């Protein structure tokens, strides 16, 4: 992927003829990435139709498979688990490799970005210090009952309560908190209604609230890099544009972008525009 002006020039010719549908999850961080894709594509002369905030994977995947959406920001680990629930891969490269072969007919992933936004279990600083817990393995030593908080689907995920028990021998109760690691989850953790919460690693609140993200030595969580899933309609010209974006999107960038959304309350549109301007990719 390069920023060759000639490439983008030819992309112009092919792209304007058809509208590219870009989708996003019902999750602000995902929406920002989708918006970046969209603006980058528009910048290169493509016509984009935004179908943002479409709920969870289970709702939108069928629409991508059905060809109603062409480009969708995804996360390698989570997506792989969706198709291969019992996958053994955990490292970034393994996951990406297995994902490429597991996608159904008509779908493919482009290059993955350095940025990751993966599930992670977090505790408060006080809890960490009081119980000497810095890793998931340490949790087995804790004698007080533990409750895990997270979106309801976590309960049935391989890395949910069952995975914790199997891999680390930790027993936890589960409380669904339906805000994708958002403010309720945070508040429940701070109020000690739950002791352990699932928050995406790119969430700026982790740093803002001095939470301790527990290490995962056994690789319970799969690495989950940002990766665009695309339909057959996506030509090489389009792919080049998106790959350029992906290459530039670092883990720190993603946290910073999210912080702009949550703390500065900026719109996805604004955040994406500023980021693209700053990176000067094209």
């Amino acid at each position, binding site marked *: 992927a390069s920023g060759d002006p000639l490439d983008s020039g030819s992309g112009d010719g092919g792209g304007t003829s058809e509208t590219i549908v870009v989708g996003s999850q*019902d*999750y*602000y961080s995902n929406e920002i990435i989708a918006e970046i894709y969209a603006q980058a594509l528009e910048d290169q002369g493509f016509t984009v139709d935004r179908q943002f*905030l*479409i*709920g969870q994977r289970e*709702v939108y995947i*069928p*629409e991508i498979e059905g060809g109603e959406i062409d480009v969708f920001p995804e996360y390698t680990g989570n997506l792989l688990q969706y198709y291969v629930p019992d996958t053994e891969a955990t490292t970034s490269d393994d996951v990406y490799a297995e994902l490429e072969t597991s996608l159904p007919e008509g779908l493919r992933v482009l290059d993955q970005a350095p940025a990751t936004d993966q599930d992670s279990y977090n505790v408060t600083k006080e809890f960490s210090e009081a119980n000497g817990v810095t890793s998931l393995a340490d949790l087995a030593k804790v004698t007080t009952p533990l409750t895990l908080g997270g979106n309801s689907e976590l309960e049935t995920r391989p890395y949910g309560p069952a995975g914790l028990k199997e891999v680390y021998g930790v027993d936890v109760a589960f409380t669904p908190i339906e*805000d*994708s690691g*958002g*403010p*309720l989850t945070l508040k429940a953790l701070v109020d000690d209604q739950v002791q352990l919460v699932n928050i995406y690693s790119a969430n700026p609140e982790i740093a803002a609230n001095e939470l301790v993200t527990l290490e995962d030595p056994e690789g319970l969580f799969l690495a989950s890099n940002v990766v665009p899933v695309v339909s057959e309609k996506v030509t090489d010209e389009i792919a080049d544009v998106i790959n350029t974006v992906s290459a530039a999107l670092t883990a720190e960038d993603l946290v910073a972008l999210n912080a702009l*959304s*949550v703390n500065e*309350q*900026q*719109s996805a*549109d*604004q955040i994406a525009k500023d980021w693209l301007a700053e990176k000067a990719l094209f």
Partner: protein
Amino acid sequence: MNWLWSNLDLVGELMLTHLALSVPAIILSFVISVPIGWLAHRYRWSRGVLLGLCALLYAIPSLALFIALPPITGLPLRSPLNLVIALTLYGIAVIVRTSADAFDAVERDIRQSATAVGYSAVGRFWGVELPLAGPVLLSGLRVVIVSTVSLATVGAVIGVPSLGTLFTNGFQRNIQAEIITGIVATMVLALVLDWLCVMAGRLLMPWSRPNTATARAVSTTLVKQADAA
């Protein structure tokens, strides 16, 4: 406030989307309900059945209906049409009873005097019964407007964008201003539509000065909608 200024576009856009969901539902439910209400009024035996069905419909939780509809209609869950159909059904549930009441409320004397001076059955419906049922029909329509606009927000939970998106999104991002904006925008939308409806009523029915009878009809509509025959 800060949030609002930098997101005026988004709010405006969602308002339009919200209108596109609720206005067709409001109009459809009104247009469908008036004939059903007339049937319930005209044929006593059908009244129990029709109003009973409406009460059943009304008892179905909105979220449950949004989910139960697609297997019947064959539409995708996230289709706005699915939401419009569901909202229309709720509107019907609310307004059929009111329209039956509206036709009941046309005085027998006036109906008979119209017959006596030589109105034909069809002429009497359009020239006398419908206009005289107007004020009560209007009161029912107003209830439907407010409840439909408010109910449409629930669609955001299953991923149909509307002003309700501001609730789910603001909730995830912990932006109270976004949620409050959503609430205010929804209420403003409801009240503006309601006001338009009242104005249209005044224009179309100059004889019906606001009186206690219609005011009372409004408040009983609020109560009766679940009141099976």
